[in-house]
C-alpha cells in the first residue's frame, strides 16, 4: 500500500508542471509577458462579470467580461500594481465587482462570523464534554418494563 502510494506519487509529480488555472480567456487577449499575464489571471479571478450570475471575468464568455479582462491587462501594462488595478475597477463599477468583499466596515460581520462561531462552539462543546465527564449516570429508569422489553428486542442483533 505505502510503497505503491509512493511510487505513483513520485510518478505524477515528475509528470506535472506548474501553470495557472482555467478560463474563458481568448488567445488574442493573452499578454506576451507571462508574469504580467499570470498577474492578470489572478486579478481576474476575484472580479465579477457584472452581467453574469456569479461568474468571474476569468470564467465568463460575456462581452463585458472580455472588456474588463482587456482593461485589467491595459492597466498592468501601464505599470499599475495589483491593488491599483483592482481599485481602478472598483472605482468604476463599485464594490459589487469584487468576488471577495473588502474586509472593512459591516463586512467584518461576514469575515468574523465563522471564526467567532467556531470559538463559541468549541467553548460550549468543551463545557458539555466536561460536564458529561463528571456527571453521574442516572440510575432511575425512564422506560416502563414493557417498553424496556420492546427496546431490548429491537436492539438485539
Amino acid at each position, binding site marked *: 500500500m505505502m510503497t505503491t502510494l509512493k511510487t505513483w506519487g513520485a510518478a505524477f509529480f515528475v509528470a506535472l508542471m506548474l501553470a495557472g488555472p482555467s478560463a474563458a480567456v481568448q488567445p488574442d487577449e493573452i499578454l506576451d509577458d507571462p508574469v504580467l499575464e499570470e498577474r492578470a489571471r489572478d486579478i481576474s479571478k476575484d472580479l465579477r462579470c457584472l452581467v453574469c450570475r*456569479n461568474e468571474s471575468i476569468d470564467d465568463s464568455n460575456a462581452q463585458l467580461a472580455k472588456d474588463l479582462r482587456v482593461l485589467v491587462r491595459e492597466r498592468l501594462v501601464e505599470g499599475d500594481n495589483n491593488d491599483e488595478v483592482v481599485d481602478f475597477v472598483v472605482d468604476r463599477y463599485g464594490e459589487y465587482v469584487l468576488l471577495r468583499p473588502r474586509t472593512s466596515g459591516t463586512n467584518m460581520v461576514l469575515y468574523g462570523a465563522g471564526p467567532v462561531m467556531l470559538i463559541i462552539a468549541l467553548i460550549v462543546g468543551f463545557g458539555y464534554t466536561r460536564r458529561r465527564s463528571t456527571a453521574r449516570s442516572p440510575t432511575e429508569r425512564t422506560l416502563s418494563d414493557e417498553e424496556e422489553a420492546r427496546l431490548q428486542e429491537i436492539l438485539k442483533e
Partner: protein
Amino acid sequence: MIVELGHFALILAAVTALVQAIVPLVGAQMRWPGWMAVAEPAAGLQFLFASFSFAALTYAFVTSDFSVSLVTGNSHTLKPMLYKISGVWGNHEGSMLLWVLILTLFGACLAWFGGNLPPSIRSRALAIQGAVAVAFFAFILFTSNPFERMDAVPFDGRDLNPLLQDVGLALHPPFLYLGYVGLSMAFSFAIAALIEGRVDAAWGRWVRPWTLAAWVFLTIGIALGSWWAYYELGWGGFWFWDPVENASFMPWLLAAALLHSAIVVEKRESLKSWTILLAIMAFSFSLIGTFIVRSGVITSVHAFANDPERGVFILGILVFFTGGALTLFAARAGQMEAKGVFGVVSRESALVLNNILLAVACFVVFIGTIWPLVSEMFFERKLSVGAPFFNMAFTPFMVLLGLVLPVGAMLPWKRAKLGKVVKPLAPAFVLAVALGGLAWTIQGGRSLLGPVGLFLGAWLLMGAVIDLMSRTGRGALGDRIGRLSRLPRADWGKAVAHAGFGVTIFGIAGLMAWEQEDIRVAQLGQPYMVGAYEITLEGVRETEGPNYLTTMADIRVRKDGKDVTMLHPEKRVYPVAAMPTTEAAIDYRILRDVYLAIGDAQADGAYTVRTYIKPLTNWIWFGSFLMSLGGLLSLTDRRYRVAAGARKAPAGGVPAE
C-alpha cells in the same frame, strides 16, 4: 383526458395528505388506535395518487402532448426519448411534482417498513410527513400547476434547455431530491420525539438509516452536478460556490453531522437535544435551498424559476415548519436527559468536534450565501460574495476535520487514552507528511494547497485502512486480513466513507494546484506542446445530431512520440432553443485528464483551442462515489435490518463496537 386525471390525482393526494396530517396526530394524542391506524393506508394512498399524477405528466411529455403548456415550453418532438422523460423534471413545475412524489415515497416507505416502531411515534412521524406534503401539494396546485392546458395548441415545442439535455443532469435532480426530501424523515422523527417528549437509543437507531440514505443520495446528486459542470461548461470547473450549489451543500454538511451525532444518541444516549436540533436544521436547510432556487432572491447561475410569488409561498412554508419546530424544540428540549458519561478524550467528544466543525462550516457557507442580500437590505451596500471568499473561509474547516478524523475515528467510547490511538497511526502520519513535503519540494515552494491536500488525502486514506485493520484484533497479519471480510458492514462503511473523503480532498488539491492550461489559435495540422503532450488539430467537421448542429474537431493527442488518443470536442447549436453549447472532449485517466474544448473559427481557417491537463480530477468523483458506497454499506448493516425481527446473530465474527 389523462392529463386532467393527473391533475385530479394530485388534488386527491393533497386531500389524503391533509387527512394524514390531522387524524393520526389527534389519535396519538388521545390514544385512539383507530385514528392512529389511519396513517399507514393514507401514506400508501398518497404515494399512489402522486405516482399516478407524475405518470400522467410523463405520459404527456413522452407523447409530446403540446396542448399542455409545460410540455410546449420544455420539449420538442425531435428530442431523444431520454430527454423527453428527463424534461419532466427539467423545469420548475415538473421538478416540484417529482419533489412531492419522493416525499410521498418516503412516507409510504415508513408506513410499509416501519412495523417495528411504537405506534405513537410512527403515526406522529407520518402525520408530520403528511403536513409537509400538504404544504407542497398546495404550493403546486396554487402556484405551479404542471397540468395547465394551452388555449391554442402549437405544432411543436420550444425544446428543453440544451444544457439540461445530458445524462448526468437527467439524473442529478432526482438524486438531489431524494436527499433533500429524505431529510424530511429525520425532521418528522425529531418532531414526533419532541411531541412524545422522549429521545432514547432506539430513536437514534430509527432516525439514522433515513439520514444515511438521504446523505448518500445527496452525495450522489451533488457529485453528478459537479461532474456535469466539469464536462459541460467548457473549462472544467467543478464547483463554483454558486448560491444554488451552496443550497445543496448546506444540507449535505448538516446531514453528515446528523448521521454522526445520531450514533452518539444510539450508542451512548447523549447529545440528544443537539441531534434533534440538527435534524430540524438539516431539513430546514433543504427548505432554504428550495427557497433560494425557486424565488430568485439571490442571483445564481441556475436561472431556474424566478418568481417572487412562489418565493413568498415557500418562505411561508419555511417559516411555518422551521419556526414551529424550533418553538417546540425550545419548549421541550430541556426534557432530553443525557445518560452516557464520557471523558474529555473519547469517541463521544471526537464526534462532538466533528459536529462543531461540520455545523460551523455550514454556518460559514450560509453567511456567505445570504450576505449580499443582508448587506444590501440593511447596510445599503451592494456587494458580491464569490468563490475566492468561500475557498478562503471554508477550506480551513475541512483541513481541521481531515486532520482530526483518523484519530477521532479510532478513539474508543467512554474514556480513551490518546497515546494508545496515536501509536498505530504515527507511521501513517509521518508518511503523509513526507508525501506532502515531497510535493512541496518538487513544486518548489509556491502555494501550500497542493502539498497540504496531498498530506490530508494520504493521512485520511491510510488512517481508514489502519482503523479497519485495528478492528481485526491481534495475531498474524494473514489471519487479520482473513478476518476483514467478517467485520460488520458498518465498520467497512465507516472506513470506505472516510477514505472517500480523503480521495476527494486529494483530487481537489491536485486539480486546483497543478492544473496546466493552454489557450491558443491552433492551425490545422500544426502540432504544439502543452506540458508533456503534443496536441494537433487535424480537422474540423460540420455535422448534425438529432436536434442540433455541431462543429466537431478531430484533435490528436500524443505523448513521447506515441498516440494517446483522438479527441472530438464539439460546439453545438440547438436551433429550436437558439442556444449554443460547448461539448468538451476528455481523455479520462487515473492520474490526469486531458481536457479539450474548441472555440471560435478564426479568419484563416484556424480555431481557438483550449487544452487543459487536469491532474487527479477523477479522484474528486471517485471519492464521492466511495463516500456514497460507505453510506450504503453502513445502511445494509445487520443492526438496521430490525424489521427482519429478532434473528439471532451468527456465531463467530468480531463483535461490533
